[in-house]
């Protein structure tokens, strides 16, 4: 069986390795760099910038930990980006090494599907190469969406792709869109010294999160003196020599040195032959797939950002595994009810499953348990007392419907609940499990106990 994967991002490279593990002869076609957006432009680059910002934050707050700092500390953006590039290139080499180890052939160039059994690749040198195949997995991902009337110029109007490679720290930064990407960059640039203002059309920042979590994050934005204008949109942008001038829907004008547009992502489904082979697409260009991730064309599968929906690297990877299994004759599906998500703001957010509002909208008879980070000895020891654990459960079955955590290491902590949900465990299963002391994970146990008003470290209700 020959399987060809279009795109070597977190969806495509995982699909390729899985297919190889299952015995397929695998070719991966990649126009950019292996690792895709996640490794080269998104997840990993932002996390390395955040790591630098966190060290800076710790040093600035050294006094609180009883440490005397002799001298000052300043971010050197060139060195910070250099470190980022090093981390990325190490990971890129890692994926290339995995391909080699599993016998996956990497063809570097732009692939166009000629027919369901053939892809033509335009190589870097301009020549073409045909790749014959039995099945195709499309994993071409997405790119930063732009506002047509003020497109990215990379100098004044930045995309997230530009924002991970700054050549300087702007004195002031206006961020359009206070979603996951906007908020992560807000904390990074604020820490590095920019004066940051965010403009968001929705009533809340991170509007895809549970309302209470979003509220806590908004307070942290305020604490960090990051301005957030909600229910506000951008009417007009004037690019000037020394910056931008932006007219807002509330009638006000904001001047800033640079502007980052983080309003979402557009799928990459153009100019790759999909129309010619008759692959159905949705209104936004998203490739339509069935439960087995197969498109309407037999033998052509699609995964990850390009199928729209939740755009998360790890979901793309899971879809890659499922598509590879199905392409090899399996019958796999993705459980979309249990998709953990992480936001690397300060503090972090980790979530999985239903938000409280969703549970209410579905008419579920639900219960909520909460516990504050400041109720944990470990949080005090770390100096990280901001945050909350929240568990939503089904009143009758006691099964967990969702969990939402904001606080230090929330992105790691949420997985205990993800496993519990995947296996259909109850709130009491979590509450009965001994959690090591002193850890932040104790907060999950306490929140589980709190569902039944029995949290040991909460006052009687």
């Amino acid at each position, binding site marked *: 069986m020959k399987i060809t994967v279009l795109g070597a991002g977190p969806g495509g490279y995982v699909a390729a390795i899985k297919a190889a593990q299952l015995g397929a002869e695998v070719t991966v076609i990649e126009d950019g760099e292996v690792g895709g957006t996640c490794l080269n432009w998104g997840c990993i680059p932002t996390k390395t910038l955040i790591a630098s910002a966190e060290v800076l934050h710790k040093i600035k707050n050294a006094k609180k930990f009883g440490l005397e700092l002799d001298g000052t500390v300043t971010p050197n953006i060139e060195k910070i980006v250099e470190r980022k590039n090093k981390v990325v290139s190490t990971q890129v080499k890692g994926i290339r090494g995995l391909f080699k180890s599993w016998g996956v052939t990497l063809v570097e160039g732009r692939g166009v599907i000629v027919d369901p059994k053939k892809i033509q690749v335009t190589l870097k040198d301009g020549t073409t190469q045909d790749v014959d195949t039995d099945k195709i997995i499309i994993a071409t991902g997405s790119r930063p969406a732009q506002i047509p009337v003020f497109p990215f110029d990379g100098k004044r109007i930045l995309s997230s792709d530009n924002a991970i490679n700054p050549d300087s720290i702007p004195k002031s930064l206006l961020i359009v869109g206070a979603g996951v990407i906007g908020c992560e960059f807000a904390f990074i640039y604020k820490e590095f010294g920019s004066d940051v203002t965010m403009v968001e059309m929705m009533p809340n920042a991170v509007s895809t999160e549970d309302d209470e979590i979003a509220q806590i994050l908004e307070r942290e934005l305020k604490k960090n003196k990051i301005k957030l204008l909600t229910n506000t949109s951008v009417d007009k942008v004037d690019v000037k020599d020394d910056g931008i001038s932006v007219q807002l829907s509330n009638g006000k004008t904001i001047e800033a040195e640079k502007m980052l547009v983080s309003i979402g992502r557009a799928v990459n489904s153009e100019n790759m032959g999909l129309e010619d082979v008759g692959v159905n697409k949705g209104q936004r260009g998203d490739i339509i797939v069935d439960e087995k991730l197969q498109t309407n064309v037999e033998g052509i599968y699609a995964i990850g950002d390009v199928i729209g929906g939740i755009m998360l690297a790890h979901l793309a990877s899971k879809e890659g595994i499922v598509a590879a299994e199905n392409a090899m004759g399996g019958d796999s599906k993705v459980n979309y009810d249990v998709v953990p998500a992480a936001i690397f703001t300060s503090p972090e957010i980790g979530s999985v499953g239903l938000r409280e509002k969703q549970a209410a909208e579905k008419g579920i008879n639900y219960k909520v348990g909460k516990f504050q980070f400041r109720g944990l000895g470990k949080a005090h020891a770390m100096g990280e*007392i901001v945050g909350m654990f929240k568990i939503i459960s089904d009143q009758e079955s006691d099964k967990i419907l969702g969990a939402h955590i904001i606080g230090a290491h929330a992105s790691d902590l949420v997985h205990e609940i993800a496993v519990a949900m995947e296996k259909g465990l109850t709130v009491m299963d979590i509450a009965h499990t001994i959690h090591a002391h002193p850890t932040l994970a104790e907060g999950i146990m306490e929140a589980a106990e709190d569902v039944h008003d029995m949290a040991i470290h909460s006052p009687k209700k």
Partner: protein
Amino acid sequence: MYPDDIKYHKEHTWVRVDGKKATVGITFYAQETLGDIVYIDEPEIDSSVESGAEFTQIESTKATSAVISPVSGKIIEFNEDLGDAPEVINEEPYGKGWIAVIELEDESELDKLLDAGAYEKYVEEEVKDK
């Protein structure tokens, strides 16, 4: 602990009136119960508040709590010094630890508030046992 020149709300806030201007803060009991104050949210200037309703939030090492306004009116000033030094609320809840100035809407509301003696009694008898 409970000075005589100010009035008290049962939600553990106080008000000192000077003409139309009402300076508000949290009481000694409130700061003692909360523990070390680490942050106070800056309320929106020019926004309206109702007596008995939340007008901002306060964070301590123990809890995040709503701060209830003892009077109705418009918030005209916030104590900016608390931004960098919220612990002043613990040190001087009735002095440098004031939170905001509210332009009074209805002076008759003040009659419904407690005086120092009544508030102290309220704290001793009704709150501390709970």
